[in-house]
């Protein structure tokens, strides 16, 4: 579904991605784990068109997308929930959801999806007339995911959904992520610092080190790997 082939990204002189090749197949949850600055978020930003690869190709559903505008990439069904949630604090929950459906014009289906978003995250229904900025961190993350879903993505890219949230909320959010994948067939590319949780949720995983993919395997195999356990899972 999504294939990155030998993708290089430079920030000025900094070589952030040094030939990354990864693949996400339809129906999968794929996670990228790795230390800070390894290039995980850069990968998502490059796929969604916010950054341009200096070389390499990105193919989505058989189509080259590495030179496309971000809005065209969203229109193809590839939606990015950026790190730090990035909801619109001055807009209400309802308006945030409407912005997520910005590229769509099928009003009845949009309203239906709004209902579905409230079903997934009932707390958002209670808060629907509140401004995004007044929500708690966990609620904001839920809103960010719900807003992305409003674009009806086929592939959702989540950047650090657990960042700064209480463990119980993180649990809830990851359950929802798994549910979206199982029940709705949503393909998910997940970038996560919390490697243990990410590997428990995902089917497959890639391990990044300073801009390169160093390991690639089934999530369970990675979780069992000695090196991964030592470096990212905090256990020996």
């Amino acid at each position, binding site marked *: 579904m999504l294939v990155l082939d030998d993708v290089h990204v430079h920030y000025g002189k900094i070589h952030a991605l040094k030939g990354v090749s990864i693949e996400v197949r339809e129906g999968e949850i794929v996670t990228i784990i790795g230390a800070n600055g390894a290039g995980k978020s850069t990968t998502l930003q490059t796929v*969604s*068109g*916010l950054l341009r690869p200096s070389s390499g190709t990105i193919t989505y559903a058989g189509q080259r997308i590495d030179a496309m*505008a*971000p*809005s065209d990439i*969203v*229109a193809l069904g590839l*939606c*990015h*929930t*950026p790190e730090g949630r*990035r*909801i*619109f*604090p*001055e*807009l*209400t929950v*309802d*308006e945030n959801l409407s*912005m*997520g459906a*910005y*590229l769509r014009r*099928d009003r*009845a*289906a949009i*309203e*239906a*999806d*709004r*209902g*579905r*978003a*409230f*079903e*997934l995250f*009932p707390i958002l*229904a209670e808060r*629907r*007339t509140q401004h995004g900025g007044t929500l708690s961190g966990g609620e904001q993350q839920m809103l960010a995911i719900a*807003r*992305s*879903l409003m*674009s*009806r*993505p*086929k592939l959702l890219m989540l950047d650090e959904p657990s960042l700064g949230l209480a463990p119980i909320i993180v649990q809830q959010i990851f359950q929802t992520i798994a549910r979206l994948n199982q*029940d*709705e*067939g*949503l393909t998910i590319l997940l970038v996560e610092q919390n490697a243990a949780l990410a590997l428990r949720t995902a089917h497959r995983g890639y391990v990044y080190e300073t801009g390169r993919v160093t390991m690639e395997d089934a999530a369970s195999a990675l979780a069992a790997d000695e090196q991964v356990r030592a470096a990212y899972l905090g256990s020996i």
Partner: protein
Amino acid sequence: MSRTDAVFGALALLAAIVFPWLAGFRGTLPNVALYVGIYMILALGLNVVVGFTGLLDLGYVAFLALGAIVTALLLSLTRTESGIDWAIGVSHDVVGEPLLGFDGAILIILLAAGLACALLGVLRGIPTLRVRGDYYAIVTLGIAEILYETALWDDTNLLNFTRVTGGAFGIKLPSSHVPHLFGQKLYYDQPVFYYLVLALVVSAFLLTHHLNRSRVGRAMAAIRLDETAARACGVDVSRHKLIAFAVSGFVGGIGGGLYTLWSGTVAVKGLDVWQSILILCGVVLGGMGSIRGTAVGIAGLMCLGELLREDFGGVSVPPEARFLIYGLLLIIVMRFRPQGLLPPVRRSRAVTDAEHAALTTGHARLYDLRAPAGAAAAAGADAVEGT
């Protein structure tokens, strides 16, 4: 538009229509009204970029100046015995008939001024598209200054634009070239001019109001609130910024054209950075992003400016001190009402409880990604009907 807004709008329009019947078309009051009207158009145009899109523009005077100059130049095109010339020469007189002297030509000329400024807006905006907001302010300030200096540049050996801009003296429109509309001369003291300005003020209101309510307006608001989030939602940020620059420039150009008609002369010397600041102050005072706020803010500021020209029992405020008073006013307003006098009303159409119940109960898998969008839409409609 809420009902209160509609009522206030209608009352204000009615007042503006009957105003000259009470005050006449000649004299200080109607003249101030025209002046306010022209600056209102400018402020409404600036509000599109500053208020709707959230980018600070410190060089809006460039549109006022370019619109005014384009209008003056087109009006002064003259058919002479030896061909076509401009009747703006400081050093030589041009004798002949205005080329665009037919009735109503001014509407085309104003359109041309608007389009020229829309182009300037886009050209000026392009270099800032790849960088974040603050650079836009610097570029606008810089380009306005470059244009200002260029217009006044009279070095005879190098580029000399004073032939076009009149340099420090400005361009004076010959009275033989004052345009006609509906058979009347568009002089500042003629009813037809007053109502032309009024019609264009109303047009600027309607244009920016509809823009704000449109899909494009929603995209602009998203850009203002969070550019990255807007991109993630699929908003084409560059395209919508360029639309904002073009609309803002277009409206400013029309305002500039009216300025030419109103004053009869265009002297670049007076169109400096303080004009940009003045218009920006009006928008900020009234409430950025609010159309009625912008209108009230700039009108208040212009009227205050006129009052400050008066003699208060032998004490008068020197012109240079006027901006001190504006600044003080701005500080006071920002201290006690940082959102401006009439900030935008936050519209949020909440989903009603009934709708919410219909949306959240019982139907299976509306958000089924494997189903085509049409099928889900049909399912949604069914579910709503079914409850």
